[in-house]
């Protein structure tokens, strides 16, 4: 690689001047800071804390399921634990951690100084910890936490055994509404940022796929979250104000709640998954040195997924007393969503095909996520085939399928993103060996945990049960073992990140030799991201041609050290 082919990102060398006052001030993370990069770290750290809490709940659940009888926790607590596990993982881990990543990356990727409304951004963040604490506080109520599952289907959720005010379900509803308001603020911010604050030359079809994904995901939030917020508000009224919206014996309709709930809660799966698909599309090209295959069709597929996902919600309700025409209609729309999703999977596969693959940790996580999503996808299409769904609905087959989505695809993808952009966030490099160990444990643990759920579901083991028939024990023991392994797998990650943030060696601005505007600024980026407003003249993912090479020769020594 000759020097004149090498792109010097900006003429600033990694300027210590730009770093001072940004990274050293650790206390800024505990303040109402309006810098999107600080807010991003706040989101990531807070949500990861909740991930550990939700993981602990999962561990207790798996512990209970090692043996057929209910012998570890009592049944109320078991119901509370899986309800909280689902709620925490979705609303306090996946959504906020992706909001954190988006917060860090979107302004950098489109060449903006900050997010559109920094004050609103900080406000949205500071609503999130109180909502989480409120949810956790319900553990200390005499009636305990909400125990009706993260769906909170009435009339079970409005059945109230103790106090009409101090009950876990009310805390749950308030927490969800609070998080909903926070998410809407976030959505307004992201959509406005992406539409209005792009740098000169950053046309829509020059945006990286991650930006496309966040745009689609946040549009989904904007249009569909109101349905959940509305539904939960009505549930809250039924619970505490004595209205009858969903009370079957007073003329209300419990199925109406299910429609309102799933009208958001199906699209929300894509609010989580799309950004992760975006992450995969960023990481794979960088480590295979190929452009993303079929960029335009992937961008259009992103929007396509968002649009189709609005029309499939009733596939969660095939057994809910749904009439025949609805069952058939939603079966057709549901399987159709596999088409744009397939476009993405095929594009990733074609991207690594005949590349020059570098098996660094981010790449392993991204490809692992893509491969396990393949399994999630084919089982998803199976579930779309409605007559089969009538058998496995509400069994562990469904649990296995969506954990292949939420853990093996989304959470694994988020880990990949953290490793990939860690040098940009901290200016330092993580430890590669510990990263690989984390991947290995995660990959084995995740498959050991969630694959056994598929045969269990086929055999008819219902989900959300604390005790089960002894015939199901064998697979359950394996799943529990995998679950504990997953718990262990987090440890090298925590150690690696904390140690590297403090003592990792300093890296160049672009240690992965990746394209994308975020790699053209310093690591970590200065206060307003770029020394001067960048102008974009290239399509994204300009890998594969020597004249666009981004190999940064200022840091060869560090790269070699990293791989030792």
């Amino acid at each position, binding site marked *: 690689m000759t020097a004149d082919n090498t*792109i*010097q*990102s900006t003429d600033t060398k990694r300027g210590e001047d730009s770093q001072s006052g940004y990274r050293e001030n650790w206390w800024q993370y505990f303040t109402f800071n309006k810098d999107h990069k600080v807010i991003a770290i706040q989101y990531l750290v807070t949500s990861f804390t909740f991930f550990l809490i939700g993981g602990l709940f999962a561990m207790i659940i798996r512990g209970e399921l090692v043996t057929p009888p209910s012998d570890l926790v009592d049944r109320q607590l078991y119901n509370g634990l899986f309800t909280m596990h689902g709620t925490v993982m979705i609303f306090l881990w996946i959504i906020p951690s992706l909001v954190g990543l988006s917060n860090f990356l979107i302004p950098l990727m489109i060449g*903006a*100084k900050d997010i559109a*409304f920094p004050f609103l951004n900080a406000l949205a963040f500071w609503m999130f910890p109180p909502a989480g604490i409120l949810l956790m506080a319900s553990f200390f109520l005499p009636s305990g936490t909400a125990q009706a599952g993260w769906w909170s289907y009435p009339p079970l959720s409005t059945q109230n055994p103790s106090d009409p005010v101090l009950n876990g379900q009310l805390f749950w509803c308030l927490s969800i509404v609070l998080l909903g308001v926070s998410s*809407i603020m976030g*959505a*307004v*911010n992201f*959509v*406005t940022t992406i*539409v*209005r*604050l*792009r*740098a*000169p*030359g*950053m*046309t*829509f079809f020059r945006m990286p796929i991650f930006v496309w994904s966040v745009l689609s995901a946040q549009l989904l939030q*904007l*249009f569909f979250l*109101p*349905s959940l*917020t*509305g*539904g939960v*508000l*009505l549930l809250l*009224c*039924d619970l505490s*104000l004595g*209205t*009858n*919206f969903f009370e079957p014996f*007073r*003329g209300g*309709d419990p199925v*109406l709640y299910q429609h*309102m709930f799933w009208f958001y809660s199906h699209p929300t799966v894509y609010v989580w998954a799309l950004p992760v698909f975006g992450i995969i599309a960023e990481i794979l090209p960088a480590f295979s040195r190929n452009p993303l*295959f079929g960029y335009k069709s992937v961008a259009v597929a992103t929007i396509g997924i968002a649009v189709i996902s609005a029309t499939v919600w009733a596939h969660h309700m095939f057994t809910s007393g749904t009439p025949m025409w609805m069952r058939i209609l939603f079966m057709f729309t549901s399987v159709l969503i596999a088409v744009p999703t397939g476009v993405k999977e095929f594009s990733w596969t*074609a991207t690594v*095909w*005949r590349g020059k693959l570098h098996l660094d940790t981010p790449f392993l996580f991204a490809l692992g996520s893509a491969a396990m999503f393949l399994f999630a996808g084919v089982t998803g299409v199976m579930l779309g085939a409605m007559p089969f769904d009538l058998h496995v609905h509400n069994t562990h087959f469904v649990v296995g399928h969506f954990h292949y989505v939420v853990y093996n695809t989304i959470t694994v993808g988020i880990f990949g993103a953290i490793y990939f952009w860690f040098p940009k966030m901290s200016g330092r490099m993580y430890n590669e060996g510990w990263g690989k160990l984390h991947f290995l444990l995660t990959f084995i643990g995740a498959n050991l945990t969630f694959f056994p759920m598929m045969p269990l579901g086929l055999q008819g083991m219902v989900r959300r049960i604390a005790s089960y028939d002894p015939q199901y024990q064998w697979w359950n023991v394996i799943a529990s073992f995998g679950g504990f392994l997953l718990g262990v797998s987090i440890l090298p990650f925590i150690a690696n990140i904390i140690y590297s943030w403090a003592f990792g060696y300093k890296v160049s601005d672009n240690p992965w030799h990746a*394209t994308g*505007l975020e790699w*053209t600024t310093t690591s970590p980026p200065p206060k307003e991201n*770029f020394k*001067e*407003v960048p*102008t*974009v*003249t*290239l*399509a994204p993912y300009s890998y594969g*041609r020597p*004249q*666009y090479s981004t190999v940064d020769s200022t840091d060869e020594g560090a790269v070699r050290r990293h791989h030792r």
Partner: protein
Amino acid sequence: MSNFIPSRELPKQQPQSQTGAQGSDPESNRGFFSDDERGKVLFGMTSFLTSESLVFAAFFVAYSALRFSSTNFLPAGVSLPNFDTSTIIDTVVLLSSSFVIFLAERALARRKLNLFRLLWLTTSAMGAFFLSGEVQDWLKETLKLSTGEIGGPFFIITGFHAMHVTVGILLQTIMLIRSFIPHNYDKGHYGVTCVSLFWHFVDGIWLIVFTLFYLWR
């Protein structure tokens, strides 16, 4: 290694860096709005109101679905919400306040600051009048929150709307106070525009609420 997948030409661009001098590419200025503060704020406000209107839409759909399907929509001996002249007066006042706020905004655009303050205050007063009328309507109402499938929707939806009216009046008050800060409008007045937009939204929603509870008999 040869390529299994045939290559396509890259878009014809200068093989330079991604960053560089502005204007080297005719397309380079597309999508560049960073300095358009007003456009940004109005875009954000519009997307927020879209989302907010969908919360109302969720309530409206729930109410309509229950009205069509529930066997206990209107229990025997109960009638639909009172519909009398006071409701009509409230409605007329609220809807015409949309016109007043429009005039206020126009006055501001022409830099007639005192006229703006007068009209702005009139809007808030009309909103307050509507609110007090609404509270009186609630007190007179024989329906309760637990009455069939009409009581809950009626109080929750009108209450949720009244909450928005209250927020609108609060925002108007803030804007009124800020109008006394010298040079407050030197950079434009999109804060006022946003509040005005919000007020039109609140009025529009009332039109639907009014239709659903008073005209749909």
